[in-house]
């Protein structure tokens, strides 16, 4: 277990390094940048006219459909990786099982496609 964790010591270090890097970049910026306050600078950019309403709005459901598909498919893809590793050891049975698995996914995709879920309406 400890040997396993050691692998990730470098990962931890690089994350720290990344944070330091970002901090450094912003820190240097902070030291060197001018500060000229102006109310207009702080307004939201809206092609030069005064901003109307809020920047938050409802987005279309279209995006949601993709999010939905993604959540379902991508999480199922999690299973692919462990399977991919042992495929050769287990052989045909594993192939068939994953075939079933991917087949179900494919049927789902085909259904969504056929029902027009994938079309941008």
């Amino acid at each position: 277990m400890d040997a396993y964790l050691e692998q990730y010591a470098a990962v931890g270090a690089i994350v720290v390094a990344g944070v330091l890097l970002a901090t450094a970049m912003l820190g240097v910026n902070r030291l060197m940048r001018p500060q000229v306050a102006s109310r207009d600078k702080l307004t939201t950019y809206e092609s030069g006219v005064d901003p109307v309403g809020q920047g938050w709005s409802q987005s279309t459901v279209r995006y949601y459909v993709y999010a939905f598909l993604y959540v379902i498919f991508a999480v199922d893809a999690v299973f692919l990786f462990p399977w991919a590793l042992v495929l050769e050891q287990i052989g045909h049975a594993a192939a068939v099982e994953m075939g079933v698995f991917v087949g179900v996914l494919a049927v789902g995709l085909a259904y969504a496609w056929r029902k027009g879920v994938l079309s941008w309406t």
Partner: protein
Amino acid sequence: MNIPVDWTVAGPATIVLVGALVALMVDAFYSRRTWLGSGLPASIATVAATAELVRGDASAYPFAFSLVVLIGTLFVVVASNVMNFENAMPPGEYHFLLMSAAAGALLMVSARDLVTLVVALELLSLPSIALVGLRQGDQRAIRSAWTFFLASVVSTAVTLMGVSLLYGVTGTLRYDELADALTVPDVPRSVVSVAVVLTVVGLLFKLGAVPFHLWIPDAYEGGSVMVAGFLSAVSKAAALGALLVLLAVSLPAASDSWQPVVAVVAAVTMTIGNIGALRQDDAIGLLAWSSIAQAGFLLAPAVAVSGPFGLTPAVQYLAVYALANLVAFAALAVLLRLRGSTRLDDLRGLARTDPWMGVPLVFATLTLAGFPPAVIGLVTKYVVIRPVVEDGHVWLGVVMGVNVMLGLAYYLRMIVTLCGRQDGEPYVSPSPPISVRFAKSTVLIGTAALIAVSAWPDLLLSHLP
């Protein structure tokens, strides 16, 4: 490395799943969107799965529970034709979800390890939730689905927590190894107790036991009637089967931590369910609450699951309950279609004006009540009280008796209403579509079966394990 597949267990579920996919594809690529188009593959798959189940040599209890699940599913699929031409109900999705849930139910009762159990539980739950909310644009259905969803996911999470603790205590998730591991003297009893109780929670939820019962009336009344039938029969069968097998096979060593819980939950469940049912004016609401109460009766023999009777009493009670409930719900689905209402007042005198629907409904209700001439209902009540009493839980037996009585109060009210004189002419749809006949035929076949086993209870009792 060769990993064997136990087709005895996986076969029926696989067939059902294939049926689900075929139903979905037929609906997608066969452009005339008729109810039959996707219903046919679903029915065929169910029949095939039943054949496979009978052909295989599944052990007795999973076999019995699977049989209830499959027959219940077939019943629901056929009776669901009553929703034909209902534009808000997409047939492909409906059948797909139904069959997926059925597959989940099948896996659940045959599960031999907690991973399978949890996955199957979700495979049953999530499509069920979707089924409840499937009717498009129906606010009430969606709200019910939300309530159902929330309760379901929370209980699943709790169950998973319990499972993880069990794993932490024993290092295994297989039923048989779990049973052995729990007999080791130095397992921390307190953790085991917590783990067991948490694990059981999810199944109790599916069963609709108090305090996880509030979704039931919501879901039954919000969804369509046959979905309610499915939930009340198939879903319950699966939950009960899984729970009993789990308790009997893997947790007997921890029985002192679950037995009091199960006993108290059973008692409270039947009481609250019955009290709730007393106040209902709608037949579906009444059946919904009554099915909570029935869950208590189903659960009660679990306290004696390690006793000489084993799972048998629960199986027998379940079979009769499921059949009667399905008949009742199918009849109500037909009535809702033809009359637009299932309020008791609107059903007054049904047994006289429409005996082909009224009498089955009366008989099914009598069966649920356990009242002669539906002898089988009475006999199965006897069957579930017996092990409870024999195992020494006389108080629970008495509570069951009191609840038989409470149940009779509203079942008889329904019966009396159905047999009563109707006050005005009811609205009846002038031209019932042919598809209603499918549902009607299921009602009649189910009633015939009920009458047959009432006349000769051994027909059922000696054939279920």
